[in-house]
């Protein structure tokens, strides 16, 4: 049940990330001027940009509810029902304080300090609860709930502070972290096989960094500062230009670093494993090649909705692939004999 629910949460998170991309790429981020309500309602008239933004919020709510259910299930299995109650209390504190702060900020343009303190207390409570959790699944589920609450908070801040770049980048970065947690919970750590994990960690970190870089390009409006390919304004690294141009080119250049790392790590893992792990390892290079093609399409179509959103989707799938590979593998030396089924 926990695995299935985690898989559903992971799939829903991918949908949520795509919906978030549609929000950005259709300029719908401020279609609802308030948060958490939209025009003061939990269910506004679903038309145009409002429908896009509010659908994103509704999917986020569904992801949040899945995560709550995961926390309850994992902690009940670990006979830590009391801790689930404590987490419910801390979640209510964070949500209550956030919603109150959102209402006050929308009405008066001032963020109440008391709400900030209450939210901080709620997160401290979460950290304490996670440290008390016995099972890994319980820890992961509680961490996922903490991340998804933070994600909602960042979503609120994007609306209330009218799309600040740093918050937008963090919003995407946090959603990717949540996706990784959901994937690890879905895969489970029951049957792991020996495989070199160093290359996997390195590549996963590079993919994550590239996602953050891409989000910064997107949210600073640097997506089309270079419209020629493969060079930018006739050079690989044009001199005397605005930093945004270098940001854009850094994203392009780092794509090739990621490409190299993905080929290297997937070959290393594929050689030492079989079955599903080998399949996941072989999917990664295909995804990264598709991703580069989508990046090029994003530029040549002037950021048309389909390629630019697909670019985000494939990034999420690539990271999820590495999260699954990491969850399904152990360093060869650390694998217990009973579990090691190295190919």
């Amino acid at each position, binding site marked *: 049940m926990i695995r299935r629910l985690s898989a559903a949460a992971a799939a829903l998170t991918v949908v949520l990330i795509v919906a978030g991309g549609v929000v950005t790429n259709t*300029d719908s981020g401020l279609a609802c001027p308030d948060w958490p309500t939209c025009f003061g309602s939990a269910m506004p008239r679903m038309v*145009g940009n409002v429908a*896009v933004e509010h659908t994103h919020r509704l999917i986020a709510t569904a992801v949040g509810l899945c995560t709550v259910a995961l926390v309850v299930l994992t902690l009940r299995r670990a006979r830590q029902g009391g801790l689930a109650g404590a987490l419910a209390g801390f979640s209510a504190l964070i949500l209550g304080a956030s919603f109150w702060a959102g209402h006050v900020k929308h009405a008066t343009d001032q963020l109440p300090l008391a709400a900030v303190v209450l939210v901080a207390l709620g997160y401290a409570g979460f950290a304490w609860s996670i440290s008390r959790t016995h099972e890994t699944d319980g820890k992961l589920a509680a961490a996922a709930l903490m991340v998804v609450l933070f994600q909602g908070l960042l979503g609120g801040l994007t609306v209330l502070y009218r799309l600040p770049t740093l918050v937008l980048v963090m919003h995407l970065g946090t959603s990717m972290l949540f996706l990784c947690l959901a994937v690890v919970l879905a895969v489970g750590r029951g049957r792991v096989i020996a495989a070199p994990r160093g290359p996997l960690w390195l590549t996963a970190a590079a993919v994550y960094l590239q996602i953050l870089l891409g989000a910064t390009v997107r949210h600073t409006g640097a997506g*089309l500062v270079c419209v020629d390919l493969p060079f930018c304004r006739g050079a690989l690294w044009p001199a005397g230009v*605005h930093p945004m*141009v270098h940001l854009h080119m850094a994203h392009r250049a780092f794509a090739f670093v990621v490409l190299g790392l993905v080929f290297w790590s997937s070959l290393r893992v594929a050689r030492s494993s079989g079955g599903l792990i080998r399949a996941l390892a072989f999917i990664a290079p295909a995804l990264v090649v598709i991703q580069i093609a989508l990046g090029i399409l994003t530029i040549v179509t002037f950021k048309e909705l389909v390629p630019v959103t697909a670019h985000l989707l494939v990034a999420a799938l690539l990271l999820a692939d590495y999260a699954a590979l990491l969850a399904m593998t152990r360093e060869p030396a650390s694998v217990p004999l009973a579990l090691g089924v190295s190919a």
Partner: protein
Amino acid sequence: MTCSRLIAVAAALIIPAAAMAETIEGEVDFTGKPPTPGKLHREADPFCAKKTMTDPAVLTKNGKLENVWVHVTKGAKEAAKPPSDTVEMDQKDCMYEPRMTTAVVGQKIVAKNGDPVLHNVHTYLGSSTLFNKGMPNDKAAPIEYVAKEEGMMKWKCDVHPWMRGYIGVSKSGLQAMTKGDGAFKIDNVPPGKYTVESWHEKYGTKTQEVTVEAGKPAKINFKYDGTEKGGA
């Protein structure tokens, strides 16, 4: 029937109808503290960077708000015949010119590029893209588009993200755009009850009901105080 009689009958029919068409007029007030326009960061493109510009999203003068689209949303009985002249949206100095204007459903809209650099013209109605085409430089052929639906047509250049333009498209043609004095005047309004909406790119919409009577202009004012959120 003699020719003069025919003219007399036609005049008797036409003149009252023309006389019945009234106006809805008024002003859009801005009662809050006018925001200081921020500098647009156009440094990423060397051509655009040559000129320093501020954000024209909110333009106020003497407590009046410019660039507010005021239009009839309910009560209009007939669709307007599309005017034969075209609405032009130019791109000059990496800005849309004009920032805001109006068109009627069925009217031709023409996009031009007056700059020697690439702009892509990405237009939206709500969350849907209407067209997204590149114009490499000032020699690029104009893009022609016929307005199909009413609503606010948003113009964006993804190459230069600060570039924004707006064309309010109306089916009835009962619309106006406020100028620097905040005044608007909607002509040729038959007597009746109407819902009139004002739309500002930053402060969103406000609505009012108005009754237009034969023989006198209907007056309404809209008020924004700068705390409103919405718009584009």
